[in-house]
């Protein structure tokens, strides 16, 4: 297999890094009113959908109203978590100095506390993207998502665990920050988890309180219908977020790396790893917004702190740069990427074949 560092000569890596730095600087210099207007517009739509969804559930005895309410609330939660929450918490709008758009202060509509998530996501995942044993998002500590992860009979349940994770995704994201696998390995103590756990209890009880207690109670005799509606909206958001996120790093041709080959990376090498370790999803403008522009996972991983609306604008240029250096630019429609991820989940439930040569020719061709 072509090693991470063998793809480009040191001079090429440096030049490649400079080109991406220049691209980034051009966008940063251009940030202004249009970016703020955009996110304010999305926020306005999200809040509108949320209020409409909650209101419609007060008429939940009328099936079309219930369905419309659940639809609006699902969309509101998806927008809140993805195009607004994920991106704001990356610091994409910190330059506006607006406290409502501050990465340090924003809190999203999900049970995972923002502060815990920012650490595991912005720091661990975005710094150590796809480095086995470093990036805790590879398999989330429960799945086998890479050949190089040692097989164990536990992983026979891979498809079951993945299905459960998709259904309960917000809870999975919340528990992820407890780093249970590291506690089991003895690398993390329960004492380390006390502050994390405290935040989890506070946040989760508020979220559960509004979705499963207060809003149902307020609708009086409709309480069971409202409860069911809110649960459905949470489920819809969970499945959607799981699908988008798993398509970002786990389709078949996306690469993973070892700690050795990534130690002492230069900026250019870091960019290189982000490109090789991420995959885009093709689709229309509405799809991109609903995915929080994580459909531009490659651009997001190169420049995680640039407002996401800029990713589609620079995608063409990033792709040209990749072509220029003979690098792959993984992309495909959602159904193709999802199918690829599903196959991987099932395949890796079983022990890997002793030699991984079956995937090799394909990879080398693309890299050539």
């Amino acid at each position, binding site marked *: 297999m072509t090693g991470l560092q063998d793809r480009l000569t040191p001079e090429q890596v440096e030049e490649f890094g400079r080109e991406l730095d220049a691209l980034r600087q051009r966008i940063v210099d251009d*940030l*202004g*009113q*249009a*970016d*703020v*207007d955009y996110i304010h517009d999305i*926020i*306005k739509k999200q*809040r*509108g959908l949320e*209020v409409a969804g*909650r209101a419609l559930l007060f008429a939940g005895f009328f099936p079309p109203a219930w369905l419309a309410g659940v639809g609006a609330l699902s969309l509101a939660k998806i927008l809140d978590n993805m195009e607004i929450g994920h991106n704001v918490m990356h*610091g994409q709008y*910190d*330059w*506006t*100095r*607006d406290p*409502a758009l501050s*990465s340090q202060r924003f*809190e*999203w*509509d999900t049970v995972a506390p923002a502060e815990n998530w920012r650490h595991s996501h912005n720091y661990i995942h975005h710094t150590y993207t796809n480095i086995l044993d470093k990036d805790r998002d590879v398999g989330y500590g429960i799945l086998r998502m890479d050949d190089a992860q040692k097989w164990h009979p536990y992983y026979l349940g891979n498809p079951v665990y993945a299905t459960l994770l998709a259904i309960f995704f917000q809870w999975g994201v919340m528990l992820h920050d407890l780093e249970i696998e590291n506690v089991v390995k003895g690398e993390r103590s329960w004492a380390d988890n006390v502050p994390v756990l405290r935040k989890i209890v506070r*946040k989760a009880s*508020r*979220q559960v*309180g*509004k979705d499963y207690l*207060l*809003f149902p109670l*307020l609708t009086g005799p409709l309480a069971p219908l409202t409860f069911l509606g809110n649960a459905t909206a949470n489920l819809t958001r969970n499945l959607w977020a799981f699908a988008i996120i798993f398509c970002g790093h786990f389709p078949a041709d996306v690469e993973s790396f070892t700690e050795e080959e990534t130690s002492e990376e230069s900026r250019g090498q870091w960019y290189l790893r982000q490109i090789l370790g991420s995959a885009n999803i093709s689709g229309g403008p509405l799809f991109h917004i609903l995915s929080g522009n994580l459909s531009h996972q490659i651009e997001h991983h190169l420049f995680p*702190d640039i407002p996401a609306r800029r990713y589609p604008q620079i995608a063409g240029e990033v792709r040209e740069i990749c072509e220029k250096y003979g690098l792959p630019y993984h992309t495909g429609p959602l159904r193709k990427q999802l199918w690829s991820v599903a196959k991987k989940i099932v395949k890796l439930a079983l022990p890997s074949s002793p030699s991984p040569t079956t995937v090799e020719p394909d990879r080398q061709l693309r890299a050539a």
Partner: protein
Amino acid sequence: MTAIVPRRVRGLASLAEALLTPHGMDRYLELVDPMLVRREIRGLVTAVRKQTPDSVTLTVRPSRAWPGFTAGQYVRLQVEIDGVRRTRCYSPCGSQYDGELEFTVKEQGLVSGHLNRAIGVGSVVNLSTPDGGFTLPAARPDRVLLISGGSGVTPVLAMARTLVAEGHPGEIVFLHYSNGPADALYRTELAELAARHPGLRVVHAYTHAKGGDLTGFFSAEHVEPRFRDAETFVCGPKPLMDAVREELGERVHTEEFTPPPLTFDTAAAEGRVRFRRSGRECANSGKPLLEQAEEAGLSPEHGCRMGICFSCTQLKTAGRVRNARTGEVSGEEDEEIQLCISVPVGDVEIDA
């Protein structure tokens, strides 16, 4: 009954907050009308007038969370310019008993320029709670000497108007310095105020023109002898405040709107400064972190640049800094510091 209503309102408000978690009520109310916010403080501009060609006077109605201010205090006012919120400190210059706030802003930079040219009736600005200890003593002194220079008139005028509104029984002298009659702010208002309140005497001093009650920069002769030991409140350019302090001594209260000259040892500076979130790094130049951040291409939020407004507070994640005002060195981990007056001592990492 009256006791029950507020409790019920409070109950409803906390229910609404529980329903609207995690964003909170303000984030929804502001979409209906930016002035409906309950926790944040905003101000609606209700009147705009030009007293001099290079200044603007805004009348601002604060939203419900405004706690009121004490004459002489300042607020941090925020406006959005090309998508970026900018913060500056201004002293309201009306009486503290007025429901609306009045700000007079001289055009001299980005924010003041925006306030002069882009703000109109109906504009909404963000306000902080008032701050600052430049205020009249609660037991009002019998004789009060108010001295101001240029746009430093604002906090001192608030004091004069407040004393007049209280029907202050003693004597007040308001000594205002300006270049000449053309840029003497609040000339008419001060004359009207003096006409209404016999105890108030207004004296206009022109530093660069003739025809005022007094001419030239401040000197002890500008104050009649029996007022030289009065409680004195001064706001204006630094040389004016220094001169007043030197001549009149202990009973002088000042509002430092211009930074005291902090001295920085740039030659002995060592170590590196890292800005964690942006990934920028630079060699420590020995200057305050705010300047170093700006030189490194960052644009951190800030306000006064002199350690009073706390707009530039950021988390220091590693290293030691010296407070340029107090000289105190602190090396606590994860401590919030004011970038504008913190100088790195060796390697420092800031979460910015």
